[in-house]
């Protein structure tokens, strides 16, 4: 019994030694031993082989359906006016007034929305075109071959028994270092040494956390990196976005104060670095938010602010409406596009399905997190443009760079219904069609014809 105990202790010590000296310390200095990149390369080869195998298997068993990435129905591309024209032309009666057949157009459009719409699918995880050997993304894939199953089994073992304890250890080290480090730095007086030290602490801690996720981050266009006094906006997929971005620079974060572990972390972070945390009650008061942010931006020496204008997590296939609040502050906007590679794991946080802890556990037992970050050139509001148009312009730029779909819908539709103002739009358009077709105004009396 004694021997077993000493052996276990020795193994544990050895393991901790490996973790600290081969992973944590190099991470803190931004160096890498190259293990992760080798791992990713092996994974890519494995997944490509698996894809080919599954494709072959699917040809042999035609009853296994493939997921359709572009939606399941084909939609007519015409506008309302064009389609109405066609409908009316095919009628033998005189066109020009309302006709029963007009209802057909709306009926069909309604059914199309029920079968497949652009918004509802953005709030659940993206369906992959091919399986990536994780059970959780297995939508439609059935048993194909023995070798595939063996690889899947090995994958489960590697992920849960080898990688997962490693990642948990790293995460604990990283987070405790963040709390302790920032608290210590907070005791120093306000001078340049303090700022430099706080940057060091934040950077090293986020690097350790990135290792805890086996994150491979590729930064593109580093010359566009945000400068002090600017505002950074990015598309939002998961809380991990913060870790990904903060690996390459220090930002002042904006967000709600939480309770529990997150609250402890937030409170200690704000001791060393001027982040902007809000109470829930203050979030509702937009003027208070805007004035605090304006004060922060005006002091040009402060760190750039990081904001996610969508307001909620979207599943990384599209970019939804950017709320105009962040674009009213003034100052230079530095857009950033973030795209996760879905082959290695699903980064999207579906907050209605999983809470924070289970989300983190799922992410830590995926293959890895591989992400591309593009820094876009800075943009400012132009003359004659209002905040909404500016926000849309930035959104298009982000969507274009990241290869995401640009949608005008509001991300808060995840939780609420459409505002009434939008509902009337279609009716207004249709009324215009009718009135125009009538030639003269619609009040032209047809009443004399009524009996």
């Amino acid at each position, binding site marked *: 019994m004694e021997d077993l105990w000493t052996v276990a202790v020795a193994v544990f010590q050895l393991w901790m030694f490996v973790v600290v000296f081969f992973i944590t310390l190099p991470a803190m200095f931004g160096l890498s031993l190259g293990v992760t990149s080798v791992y990713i390369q092996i994974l890519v080869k494995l*997944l490509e082989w698996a*894809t080919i195998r599954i494709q072959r298997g699917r040809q042999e068993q035609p009853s296994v*359906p*493939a997921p*359709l*990435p*572009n*939606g*399941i*129905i*084909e939609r007519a591309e015409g506008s309302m006016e064009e389609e109405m024209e066609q*409908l009316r032309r*095919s*009628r*033998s*009666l005189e066109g020009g007034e*309302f006709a*029963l*057949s007009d*209802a*057909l157009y*709306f009926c069909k*459009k*309604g*059914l199309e*929305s*029920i*079968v*497949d*719409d*652009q*918004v*509802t*699918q953005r709030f659940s995880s993206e369906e992959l*075109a*091919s399986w990536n050997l994780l*059970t959780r993304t*297995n*939508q*439609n*894939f*059935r048993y194909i071959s023995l070798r595939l199953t063996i690889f*899947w089994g090995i994958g489960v073992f590697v992920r849960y028994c080898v990688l997962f304890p490693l990642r948990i250890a790293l995460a604990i080290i990283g987070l405790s270092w963040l709390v302790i480090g920032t608290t210590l730095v907070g005791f120093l007086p306000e001078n340049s040494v303090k700022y430099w030290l706080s940057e060091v602490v934040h950077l090293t801690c986020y690097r350790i956390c990135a290792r805890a996720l086996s994150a491979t981050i590729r930064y593109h266009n580093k010359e566009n990196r945000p400068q002090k006094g600017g505002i950074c906006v990015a598309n939002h997929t998961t809380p991990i976005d913060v870790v990904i971005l903060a690996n390459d620079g220090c930002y002042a974060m904006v967000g709600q104060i939480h309770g529990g572990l997150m609250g402890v972390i937030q409170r200690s972070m704000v001791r060393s670095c001027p982040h902007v945390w809000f109470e829930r009650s203050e979030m509702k008061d937009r003027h208070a938010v805007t004035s605090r942010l304006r004060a922060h931006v005006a002091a040009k020496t402060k760190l750039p602010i990081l904001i996610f204008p969508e307001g909620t997590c979207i599943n990384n296939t599209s970019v939804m409406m950017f709320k105009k609040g962040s674009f009213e502050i003034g100052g230079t906007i530095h857009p950033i596009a973030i*795209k996760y*590679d879905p082959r290695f794991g699903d980064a999207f946080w579906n907050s209605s399905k999983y809470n924070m802890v289970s989300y983190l556990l799922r992410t830590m037992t995926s293959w890895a997190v591989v992400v591309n970050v593009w820094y876009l050139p800075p943009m400012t509001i132009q003359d004659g443009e209002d905040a909404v148009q500016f926000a849309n312009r930035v959104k298009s730029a982000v969507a274009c760079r990241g*290869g995401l779909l640009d949608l005008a819908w509001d991300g808060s539709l995840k939780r609420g*219904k459409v505002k009434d103002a*939008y509902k*009337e*739009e*279609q*009716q207004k358009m*249709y009324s*215009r069609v*009718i009135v125009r077709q009538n030639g003269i105004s*619609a009040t032209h*009396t047809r009443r004399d*014809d*009524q*009996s």
Partner: protein
Amino acid sequence: MGASQTRPEHNYDDLTDKSGFSQEQIKNLYQRFQQLSGNNEKISRDDLERIPALNNNPIRKQIITAFFDKRNQHQNDVGSLDEIGFEQFLMVMSHFRPVNSTATEEEKASVRKQKLRFLFNMHDTDNDGIITLDEYRTVVEELLSQSGAIETEVARAIADAAMLEVASTNVPHMAPDDFYEGITFEHFEQILKGIEMESRMYIRFLDMNTATMRCGKLSS
């Protein structure tokens, strides 16, 4: 290795026969059903009302009611349901399936009749077999006047005029004192005779050959 979600055992062959969709289309629709219902067994009106694109449609109420209308279930039943299961969802969808190009003339005629019946039911809310002036007015008002761009009076006038035209076309020798009850199903068919239902009222499903199977390459 197998599906991570448990799927109830649907008799897909049975559904294929009844609804006319292929197995693959049924599976796609089932996934959509799951998405809309939040992984429940049944969909309620609220679930359909939550679709943002549908909210913009002027006749959304009629469309949603059509899903819960027992008349659209091919079973000669009347009344409405509170919730529908997947089979009933499919039955309503089947009104919009494309006509097989290999179908006989008879089959095409019967499919066309079914589609017309669906539209008719949407207008005829009290199920007396006739679209009365009131029911017709309701539809026109939904389509036009809720937006405030056209006033209720005008919308009503448009509805009345259209109804009059229908009356004069279908009952040409109506004496001035006769009361035109409403549009029966036969009249309805007559009015919409010229319109190609096959292309106007169907939803074309994409299938495997038209989708591109990527190897997961990232676009940058």
